[in-house]
């Protein structure tokens, strides 16, 4: 069941440029387990969209099947949502975007949905450079079917039922980088401060933005021998580049010492401001990112933060040369060549 939340709120809640509070961006009451990382991802998304002042109805949220794919019900109530079939959200999102390029598309998926049954669709949606934000709430385990290991679980770790993970894991972040994603980040559902600016930047990025969010499963993968538990992730996380998101309309007030920060200007004029962490690498250089990810991995560390961004690349619609007018708004006048033209075509077959 999904339950509607009370719309009652404190009269002095902060309002955004549209005069809306963050409560206006919430969804139904979550039915996920208490403490599930996915709810934190949803909350970060609510805050990000609220702060960006994007009208929720100009966003479409799509998902596949799994705990993570249920999550879109619990945020952005005024957005149309589509719970599709297991592992096939990318194709439905592609078609939706082809039909109307003027909306923002947020895909919510999980490790099973993306790294196993949907790996092919994931690879091709990256390659297609679809203008969307693709979030994987990654907990390394199958929740709805009660605790089977996922393809993102590390070899050697064990499930709650003490089954050893026998196969090497798939790292979706390096895959996305190899396949040409133009925005790649990794985050942790326990770190809202990191998630919100990353989500804002991903949503404003015109092109395929991928965020892998480690989002522990409190019910099936939070035990001592798991490498996706809250404790394990907290102990092994390494924040690479600290990213601030500076929206297009904001005055830039904070100043940083020269050489300490780097700006990446997005299409809409907003800016990702990067501060060098101790593990500095160049987020505009794909190879440098891949190298940093691999090195941390060898040390048993999980590198998080913005990993790569290239705001200059053309997206799917640019490549297809699609008209700016949403295709779903075209009618007979633009689409039907008419009887006279058909007569000419008939003659070509005589």
């Amino acid at each position, binding site marked *: 069941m999904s339950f509607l939340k009370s719309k009652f709120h404190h009269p002095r809640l902060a309002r955004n440029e549209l005069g809306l509070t963050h409560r206006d961006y919430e969804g139904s009451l979550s039915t996920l387990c208490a403490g599930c990382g996915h709810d934190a991802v949803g909350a970060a998304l609510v805050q990000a969209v609220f702060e960006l002042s994007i009208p*929720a109805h100009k966003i479409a949220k799509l998902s596949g099947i799994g705990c993570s794919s249920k999550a879109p019900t619990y945020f952005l109530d005024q957005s149309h949502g589509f719970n599709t079939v297991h592992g096939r959200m990318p*194709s439905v999102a592609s078609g939706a975007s082809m039909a109307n390029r003027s909306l923002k598309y947020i895909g919510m998926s999980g490790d099973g949905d993306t790294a196993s049954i949907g790996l092919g669709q994931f690879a091709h949606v990256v390659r297609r450079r679809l203008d969307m934000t693709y979030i994987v709430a990654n907990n390394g385990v199958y929740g709805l079917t009660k605790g089977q290991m996922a393809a993102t679980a590390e070899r050697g770790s064990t499930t709650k039922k003490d089954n050893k993970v026998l196969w090497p894991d798939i790292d979706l972040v390096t895959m996305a980088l190899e396949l040409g994603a133009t925005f790649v980040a990794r985050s942790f559902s326990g770190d809202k401060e990191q998630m919100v600016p990353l989500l804002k930047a991903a949503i404003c990025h015109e092109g395929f933005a991928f965020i892998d969010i480690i989002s522990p499963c409190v019910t099936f993968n939070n035990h001592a021998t798991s490498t996706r538990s809250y404790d394990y992730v907290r102990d092994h996380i390494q924040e690479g580049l600290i990213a601030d998101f500076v929206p297009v309309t904001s005055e830039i007030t904070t100043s940083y010492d020269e050489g300490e920060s780097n700006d990446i200007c997005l299409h809409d004029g907003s800016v990702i401001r990067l501060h060098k962490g101790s593990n500095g690498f160049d987020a505009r250089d794909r190879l440098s990112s891949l190298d940093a990810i691999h090195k941390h991995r060898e040390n048993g560390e999980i590198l998080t933060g913005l990993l790569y961004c290239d705001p200059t690349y053309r997206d799917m619609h640019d490549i297809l040369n699609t*008209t700016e007018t949403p295709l*779903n708004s075209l009618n007979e006048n633009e689409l039907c060549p008419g009887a006279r033209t058909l007569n000419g075509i008939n003659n070509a077959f*005589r």
Partner: protein
Amino acid sequence: MASITSLNECVIRFANTNGTGSASANNMFAKAIFRMGIPVSPANIFPSNIQGMPTWYDVRVSAQDYMARREGAPDIVVAMNAQSMAEDVENVRPGGFFFYDSSRQIDPALMRQDITFLGMPISEICLREYKAPNLRQLFKNVVYVGAMAALLNIDIKILKDLVADQFKGKEKLVAPNVHALDLGFQYALTHFKCPLSIRLEKTNKVGSRILINGNTATGLGAVYGGATVVGWYPITPSTSVVENFEKYCKRLRIDPASGKNNFAIMQAEDELSAIGIAIGAGWNGARAFTATSGPGISLMSEFLGLAYFAEVPMVLMNIQRAGPSTGMPTRTQQSDVMTCAYASHGDTKQVLLFPSSPAECFQMSAQSFDLAERLQTPVILMSDLDLGMNDQLSEELSWDDKHAYDRGKVLNEQQLDEVEQFGRYLDVDGDGICYRTYPGTHPDKGSFFTRGTSRDEFAIYTEKGDEYVQNMQRLERKFETAAEILPKPVLHPDNSGSSTGVIYYGMSDVAIAETFDLLAEQGHFIDGMCIKSFPFSQTVGDFIDAHDQVFVIDQNREGQMRKLLIIELEQNPAKLVKVTHYDGMPITAEFISQSILRDIIAAPVKRAAKRTGS
């Protein structure tokens, strides 16, 4: 030996090797006969490979308008493939003609006394005339077409015009092709008695009809029907639907002001993705389709169920073939009827359309988008390889400029403001079809969450049994509405209230006029009905009820349409007689009439046979 004598009534078979460029020469031959005003029906029988295997091209010429494949041996064989020579000689009808390349001596063991051998040293001639090896091979095809023109009395000027048409923009190629035609034509005139006893003569039997294949018409129909989004994955024999859609879009769908495309086509990674794209676009308000064949249908089935339950409009062009795997799949069949009618898991049902000609492919393809948006469900166009890939003599394509697209029940921002409470699955009008909204329409009304079955009338997640049942009953109501608005079955114009009926669909329709004539010769006059859509309209049940015995023609082993009639209309199986043809070749009138004569209960009557075809 008596040679066959006929005028404008024969079958010519070209035996070629795949990948030698024979197809365009053979097409030109058929087109020349068409331009002489004689009804003609060409069919390509090709292997599932790229180069080197035998391929045949059968051309049936029939002033009586018998356009189905003719049973039995061809009257003339043009043998250009040494590999299949023995089989090809054997396959000539007694009294017929065997035209071959005599550059190499024919094996004396192959000679037959009951047919006429016409040898022409085509390879030698091309070796002498052309330097480049690839041209020698290519022009062999044109040379034999020139020779056939002399032998059959085809107007050589028509052939020359066709060459000019074919190489418009590449004029350099016209002269050498015309020369090749002349080489063949003159050689035949000099060395054989022309024309043969099987010959052609100009008539005006073609009228305003055109020669076009179904896939071209289907792709063009999607352009006229307003399709803007396509997801697809290549598979024979459906590929050319999308290729033709793209070809015409590039000509007719570029926005003149911006130079940008009023369409978006995505070649996907597989059929699952292809249909996912169409569903995503349909959900978001664009007219979208995908095209596939048997294996693709299997892969798309899960998504078809989602679209059924989520009530998303989309169109699927299924160009049926034998299957699975490779080989026989380049042959025609109607073997996906059952799997499409009930595609997917759960209690599902799908809307099917059955075109019987390219003109109908065009019209139904365009109409399918109206139906999909009106009914908010997938619509599957059930074509087949024979219809899709072979040129057919068809009524011309027609379009009414007054026709406005039916975009179905969609609420815009103003309409949402006027609604007290929007319920996505609320049956406001009682026809089972509810109102939907496109994403992005209204700031705080009309958004909903799309899922499969677990929702109430307001699209709120629920697992309550009674809400589920209510929704399933409404979907049933929607399909009753569908049965009322889908294309009606076509009753045969010669129906005379006989106690025997015959039901057919798709390409079997092409063999029916000839079937009726063959039956009439035996004193049987039966009624016919061509099914055009599923779920069945009332007329289908009425037709069965009005006859004591009804034959159902299927081009599959299972008699799938017959089974569907039995299941859906709760008909007595004993009354519906199965006639099935499934060897991969199109069904023939001889086969249908023999099958009917074998099992018909009604006694023949003495009445003059009425020739419906002439």
